[in-house]
């Protein structure tokens, strides 16, 4: 119903009475309902243009009352809307009670007669109200008291009143609780008035952040179709483990890791885990983000051992592996937490360019926005990770923690083992029915969606050219060209402790000291292309050192290998063979000198000893000059044996930095 033109009491924005707030008539008492219905009919008749006389005849409501009721209906209510038909309820108060009469109360006379007393006092002494508000909500300019209690606040309140010459005959001093109940009710009422400030002062930052949860307003981000929006986040895995790194030359390096991370990409509609990646870094980086997304895009065959799970029947884990049609499936929105380095521009650009999705960064620590990820993390932790013997539990006092490092090395619980557990849990989660998907499993819901045209789920792969040349994991580094004209050290760049060059760069002595942009493939250290930074001249593909060609590993694994290898080499360090010989000879000389018979021979031996000692010191001085980045030299392990048992020199050139 809408108003007719000449009913000016009802403003045009509220002309549609069907949108007015109205009470539930079924809940009214019989008497109230009769009164209410008559008033409502009167207002409706007014709005529809019936004459005042006609309204009075139909409802028995006189003219002045008709106008009074209509005005009440269009008055603003405390919830920000108009009162609407709620204003027609008998005894309905639209505005808060405001006391006008002074409080007359006798001590011991019960609690009656003091309604509105505190409001009246505040209106007379606004500075008292201001003090109470600021102290309670924690915004006082004085030294702040964290979360002042009601009793303490009441004490300050009374002190202020005493300073204003309130006596025992004045409210609240003439009441049993000295206005404590009223003051407390006032403070609690501030929640409605300023909820964010109230929670911040009384319940902490977490409560403030949670204020948007369950507000009744739905998100502007629709979640209407599968593979529409995906969430990406990282979870810290609290299970000590040992990486076994095998080098091309057969060395097995053990690297204990206390905690590490696993990144997940989860489709939001069904909580389907579409990709995951283990991050062996203390803090996940932009590279880690790209690895997770690539794990979700690439089909099973292209990922090799990385995505294989030894604990599932067929070794497969993710939807793109189980359903090859889903390989390189795109999505339209990626949601990430901006607490990590996800916000790196290069990473975001790469994702948008490759997948085509929009990127939405959520607020920091807003776990409820990521509730699918948090729920899955919790399930995986309980089902898999915290039950392993190498678990660190939830902290030092967790009874599940039982000397995790020793257990890890003793059992050789490798990262591969832990990854298998995680992947098996992912497969189990994706194939388990849950209430959120109407008791279908996430994979089942996906298959159903693809089969149902109206679901809006359809195959939307990346372009074929993008699939063949996926640049998601391309990485850009800026490196300075090294070399030395005076010694004819050819131009080269050093990346990851390896020396890269090619025929063009090796002959471009003019580039020494200038910078190159290197385009690398994070998955393979052999792939690197260079461009001169300031001119854009392309130098083509760079080649890894001769001795390293054929070694295919990721950039990350190479860093780990270097760190582990140097650590192990330092750990096995001991006295050099030459020094041991010197020590032995020195001992012999000391013995001989005691006899005092072969001074000439002792002098000759002493000269030889001094020469060897000088040579040894010269060698040690050369080693120390390269610290802290130790050169990667062919391993010469300290040997127990004679001084002359050296290995023959290496064949082939040895580059600086190798």
């Amino acid at each position, binding site marked *: 119903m809408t108003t007719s033109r000449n009913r000016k009491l009802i403003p045009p924005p509220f002309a549609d009475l069907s949108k007015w707030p109205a009470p539930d008539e079924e809940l009214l008492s019989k008497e109230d309902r009769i009164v209410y219905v008559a008033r409502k009919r009167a207002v409706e008749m007014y709005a529809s243009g019936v004459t005042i006389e006609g309204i009075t005849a139909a409802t028995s409501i006189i003219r002045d009352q008709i106008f009074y009721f209509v005005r009440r209906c269009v008055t603003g209510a*405390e*919830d*920000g*809307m108009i009162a609407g038909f709620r204003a027609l309820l008998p005894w309905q108060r639209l505005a808060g009670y405001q006391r006008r009469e002074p409080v007359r109360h006798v001590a011991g006379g019960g609690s009656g007669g003091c309604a509105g007393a505190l409001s009246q006092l505040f209106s007379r002494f606004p500075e008292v109200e201001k003090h109470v508000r600021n102290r309670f909500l924690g915004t006082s300019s004085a030294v702040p008291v964290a979360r002042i209690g009601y009793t303490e606040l009441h004490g300050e309140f009374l002190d202020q009143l005493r300073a204003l010459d309130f006596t025992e005959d004045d409210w609240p001093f003439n009441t049993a609780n000295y206005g404590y109940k009223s003051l407390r009710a006032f403070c609690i009422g501030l929640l409605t008035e300023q*909820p*964010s400030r109230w929670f911040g002062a009384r319940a902490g930052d977490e409560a403030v952040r949670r*204020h*948007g949860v369950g*507000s009744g*307003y739905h998100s*502007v*981000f*629709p979640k*209407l*179709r599968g593979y*529409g929006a995906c969430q990406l986040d990282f979870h810290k895995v609290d299970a000590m483990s040992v990486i076994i790194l095998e080098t091309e030359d057969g060395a097995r390096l053990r690297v204990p890791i206390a905690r590490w991370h696993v990144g997940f990409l989860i489709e939001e509609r069904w909580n389907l885990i579409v990709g995951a990646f283990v991050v062996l870094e203390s803090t996940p980086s932009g590279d880690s983000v790209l690895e997770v997304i690539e794990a979700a895009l690439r089909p099973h065959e292209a990922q090799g051992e990385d995505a294989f799970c030894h604990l599932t029947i067929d070794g497969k884990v993710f939807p793109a592996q189980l359903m090859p049609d889903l390989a390189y499936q*795109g*999505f*339209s*929105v990626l949601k990430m937490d901006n607490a990590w380095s996800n916000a790196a521009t290069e990473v975001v650009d790469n994702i*948008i*360019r*490759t*997948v*085509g*999705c*929009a990127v939405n960064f959520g607020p920091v620590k807003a776990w409820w926005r990521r509730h699918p990820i948090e729920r899955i993390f919790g399930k995986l932790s309980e089902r898999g990770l915290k039950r392993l013997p190498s678990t660190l539990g939830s902290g030092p006092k967790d009874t599940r923690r039982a000397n995790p490092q020793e257990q890890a090395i003793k059992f050789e619980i490798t990262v591969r083992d832990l990854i298998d557990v995680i992947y098996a849990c992912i497969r189990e989660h994706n194939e388990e029915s849950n209430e959120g998907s109407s008791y279908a499993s996430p994979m089942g819901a996906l298959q159903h969606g693809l089969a149902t*045209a*109206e*679901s*809006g*789920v*359809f*195959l*939307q*792969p*990346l*372009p*074929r*050219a*993008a699939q063949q040349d996926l640049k998601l994991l391309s990485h850009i580094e800026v490196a300075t060209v090294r070399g030395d004209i005076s010694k004819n050290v050819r131009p080269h760049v050093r990346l990851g402790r390896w020396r890269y060059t090619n025929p063009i760069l090796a002959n471009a002595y003019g580039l020494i000291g200038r910078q190159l942009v290197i385009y690398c493939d994070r998955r393979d250290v052999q792939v690197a292309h260079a461009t001169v930074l300031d001119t854009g001249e392309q130098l083509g593909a760079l080649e890894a050192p001769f001795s390293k060609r054929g070694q295919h590993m990721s950039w990350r694994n190479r860093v780990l290998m270097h760190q582990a290898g140097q650590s192990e080499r330092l750990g096995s360090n001991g006295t050099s063979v030459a020094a041991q010989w010197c020590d032995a000879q020195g001992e012999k000389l000391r013995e001989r000198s005691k006899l005092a018979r072969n001074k000439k021979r002792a002098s000759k031996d002493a000269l030889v000893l001094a020469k060897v000692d000088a040579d040894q010191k010269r060698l040690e001085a050369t080693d120390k000059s390269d610290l802290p980045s130790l050169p990667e030299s062919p391993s010469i392990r300290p040997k127990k044996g004679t001084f002359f048992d050296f290995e023959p020199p290496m064949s082939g050139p040895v580059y600086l930095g190798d």
Partner: protein
Amino acid sequence: MHLVLLEGDVAVASYDLVDDPFMISPDGSGKRGYVRVRCHDGTQYWLLVGRGGHDLGRKAAPLAIPEEMQEKAAAAGVPLQRRTEVDLIGKEVLVDNWLTLCAIMTRARAYPSYKEMEYLLAALSRHDVLRVSEVLLVSGLDPAIMLAVVAKAIQTGRVETELAHQLFGMHSQLKRVRS
């Protein structure tokens, strides 16, 4: 989200962001940015984006247009419109569809699309109405680029399909728009 809907507005030729239209300060202070929208017919208007209707936990407070913005728009001779989250209510399907169509176009942006475009135009000249699934069945054409061509045709108004009440998908019917 409002910009996503602009992507789907056939009348809009382009838009750009002046200052930062999405910087929202709690007390409304600070410089207000806006979105400058240019239409194909040569007209333009400004959009002021903000929160309004219901701020969490507070009473309803409609987004007020600052006077300086009104004066600035009046001096430039362009209308100034405001957009809040209230304007998105009831448009969830449309927003979802345009998020999907924009992603389809963006991931195929760097690749040539002339073969797919030729095929689509030829198909539309033979049939007034086509299903999306029918244009993807052709071998030799890249389905990702074909989808992008379809999305672009919808965006430019060459083709229309139901987007306000139905999720875009293989079943969507493409109708040629005859100018």
